[in-house]
């Protein structure tokens, strides 16, 4: 956590304060980006972009929210940007068959992301879970991933996403319900 003094130093372009910021938040930002993007290279690029955005706009940080909330908000927006860019590329790719434009079907969850932070015995199941998370609507995916994978509390997620606490509770509840349905369908088609 950075003190008020360090934040002021950051605004004045102090190199030590910048280093302290990177040391305090780089791991958290990288892990959040990895949980949202499901790709290590994309997560690294996103982390770099987040810090360059933080550096260039630190003067606009008024201190209304916690610094961590502000940085997480920039991270989520950056990840959303990357995800949208990727989905645009897919949509306009000439080699993509038309049926792929439909919402991802339930029995074809792409289970190909192996999270390096998950223990070996759970990796196969977690890959299926990440595939299912990937097929959720954007806001559900973000809220669920932040809570379940990063352990961010509901009230902070609400502040990050600019929504009310009840909206976040409802988003996460619907995400869980959707995941249960998707996984049950997957089980019926693949595990039997």
């Amino acid at each position, binding site marked *: 956590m950075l003190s008020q003094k360090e934040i002021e130093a950051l605004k004045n*372009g102090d*190199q030590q304060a*910048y*280093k302290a910021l*990177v040391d305090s938040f*780089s*791991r*958290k930002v*990288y*892990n959040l980006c*990895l949980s949202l993007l499901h790709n290590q290279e994309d997560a*690294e690029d996103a*982390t*770099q972009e987040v*810090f*360059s955005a933080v*550096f*260039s706009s630190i*003067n606009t940080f008024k201190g209304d929210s916690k610094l961590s909330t502000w940085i997480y908000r920039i991270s989520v927006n950056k990840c959303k940007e990357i995800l949208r860019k990727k989905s645009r590329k897919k949509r306009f790719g000439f080699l993509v068959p038309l049926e792929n434009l439909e919402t991802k079907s339930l029995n074809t969850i792409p289970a190909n992301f192996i*999270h*390096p*932070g*998950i*223990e070996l015995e*759970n990796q196969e*199941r*977690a890959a*299926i*879970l*990440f595939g*299912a998370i990937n097929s959720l609507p954007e806001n559900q995916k973000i809220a669920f991933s932040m809570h*379940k*994978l990063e352990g961010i509390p509901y009230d902070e997620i609400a502040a990050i996403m600019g929504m009310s606490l009840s909206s976040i509770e409802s988003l996460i509840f619907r995400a*869980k319900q959707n*995941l*249960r349905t998707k*996984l*049950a369908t997957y*089980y*019926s088609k693949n*595990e039997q």
Partner: protein
Amino acid sequence: MSNEQQEIIKMSIQTSMESKKEMWVEQVLDSADTKIQIEISENLKQRLERGCNETIFMHSRMPLKTIWLAAASILILITFNFTAVKYATEKKDKQETNSTIEYFSYLEQVV
């Protein structure tokens, strides 16, 4: 085996399959609970430090005041250009109208 017995067996098989499915779904949902935070790579650390130095360099090289001054100058330049083009077009139109009026009044005099 009576029909009733067959039904009961069928139902118990279905129930056990359903509970097996539910158990599997819960296991998958909980599979990421033990996830640990991973450390950033050395490459990313270097990239972040490089980015940090570049931003500090930019910060020290270009004060915010200079950036605003440059933006204001560009805006003034654009406004001047726009006004000049507008003035020139209006002047040209006026000249053309005057010469047309003169031409017609000359024609009237001749006729």
